[in-house]
């Protein structure tokens, strides 16, 4: 039974949580509303509801610069992200299957090394990786961004999948083996379908992290035709202050759109993925 005092304090808590939530979303709402304001109103009219409403920012922003439009940048980002997602799904699940289900020499050592690489800061391999890729003539190609994912370089996802596969009952494997399934078939027909939730988590996180991965993109890509969305935004933006803010903010909104949509669509997997594995 709820007492009056109980309902009262509950209401207060509710309001508080709501207010904090709104404050949290404020920067995002500010971005959204400013992107529809005419340039001169963005900094004078600080309210969220605008008196003047325009799509010009989107039109201007989409034009891009130096004759390359943002459709190109979005296309590049999408291509890179999708190829990275595929790479991680295929190669991480292969490795995870071996670690979770197969017995082989030196397994413990490899597994320990795999765990260590999760915590390794990226920078300690950065310079030699750059040198290798530049000797291969791959600077200003997407290869340095995509190839690592096809070599299961994000060992984080291997761990996620190993833990997931360990939760799949072994009886399934055994009965399949008796029915004459080899390891390859077992992986393809039994494990992979059951691994779907972990694969979806992996796909979502890989997509988002690749989409947002400004650092590697900046290092490996300088040709405007190969620019990604992040590089495009950074190029539109001039820290000394003479940017076309309306266009910049409009493109910023668009750049966040794919991630947000994916999040809202797959929220369930997403939040469960974080909760069970402690991603990010």
């Amino acid at each position, binding site marked *: 039974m709820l007492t009056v005092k109980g309902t009262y304090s509950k209401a207060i*808590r*509710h309001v508080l*949580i709501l207010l904090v*939530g709104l404050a*949290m*979303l404020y*920067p*995002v709402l500010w*971005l959204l509303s400013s992107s529809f304001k005419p340039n001169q109103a963005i*900094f004078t009219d600080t309210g969220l509801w605008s008196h003047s409403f325009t799509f010009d920012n989107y039109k201007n922003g989409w034009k891009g610069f130096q004759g390359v439009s943002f459709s190109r940048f979005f296309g590049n980002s999408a291509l890179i992200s999708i190829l990275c997602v595929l790479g991680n799904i*295929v*190669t991480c699940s*292969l*490795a995870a*299957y*071996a*670690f979770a289900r*197969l*017995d*082989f*020499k030196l397994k413990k050592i490899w597994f320990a090394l795999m765990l260590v*690489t999760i*915590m390794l*800061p990226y*920078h*300690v*391999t950065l*310079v*030699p*990786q*750059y*040198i*290798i890729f530049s000797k291969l003539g791959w600077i200003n190609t997407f290869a340095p961004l995509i190839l*690592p994912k096809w070599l*299961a*370089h994000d060992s984080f996802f291997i761990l996620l999948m190993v833990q997931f596969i360990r939760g799949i009952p072994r009886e399934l494997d055994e009965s399949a*083996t008796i029915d004459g399934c*080899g*390891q390859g*078939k077992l*992986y*393809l027909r039994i494990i992979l379908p059951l691994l779907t939730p972990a694969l979806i988590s992996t796909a979502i996180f890989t997509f988002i*992290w690749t989409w*947002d991965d*400004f650092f590697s993109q900046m290092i490996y890509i300088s040709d405007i035709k190969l620019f990604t969305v992040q590089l495009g*935004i*950074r190029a539109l*933006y001039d*820290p000394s202050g003479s940017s076309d*803010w309306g266009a910049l*903010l409009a*493109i*910023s909104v668009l750049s966040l759109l794919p*991630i947000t949509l994916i*999040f809202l669509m797959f929220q369930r997997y997403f939040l469960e993925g*974080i*909760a*069970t594995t*402690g991603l*990010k």
Partner: protein
Amino acid sequence: MRTSRRLPIHSHNRTAYAFLLPWLIGFFCLTLGPMLGSLYLSLTKYNLLRPPEWIGFANFKQIFTNDATFTHSLQLTFVYVLLSVPLRIIFALLVALALNKGIRGLGIYRTVYYIPSLLGGSVAISIVWRQIFDSEGVINAFLGWFGLEGPAWIANPDYLIYPIVTLSVWQFGSAMVIFLAGLKQVPADLYEASQVDGAGKIRQFFSISLPMLTPVLFFNLIMSIINSFQAFTPAYVIGDGHGGPLDASMFYTLYLYLKGFSYFDMGYASALAWIMLLIIAVFTGIIFATSRFWVFYGDGKGGR
């Protein structure tokens, strides 16, 4: 993937290594090899154009004795880590506790609080941050309602660290979701029993919730520290991209990037990277070593 059908069930050496092949190639060519490579390069002078020139420990000597920017960037990064990690975790914990009390619409709140973690790493949000913390921006307008005059957060080097820390704390949602999951695991009868014994809300938090959450806390702490040391995009975009104004945004990774990829002093950058690795290793080592004193793995006796 090819399989050999005649393998005995108990040892799958060849099959297993076939499955592991991509990872193994990656491990040797993208991790181990480059790590050794950067260790070697850290002892050389190298600019991509001419072959590396062996100089022994000269890079390290220079870094530790004669590089004010290194000292400054390390300090700045420490300040950032020491401010943002605890604040982020405390916020995550508080909001998780508030949400855990069976509130209506939990799903919506969880989504709302998570969205910053989702978007926060992008260049776009860093740009927004720069703008709302501008001296004419929303934050100072808000402070103005209370009669406070906010400083020039972005232009004044003494204050620039605060917007950057705020951006990190703003993304507490991912840690919060992990805490929420951890809180769900706490058996309800613990609370009931303690209530019977007359424990108040605060006592319950320190004697039940907190000890039960320590494994999650431990994990969050390690990952947050590792990630915070490597923060780059906010410093790069909220600052001017060269560490300014007056080196106020010269985070460690930004300094490393500028050394390696602006000045092409790749030996020096490699030395910086190895120092960073050692610092992170020491930090995580300390947390691991102390964990047995404060991380509580349920043994049925109740946490202290």
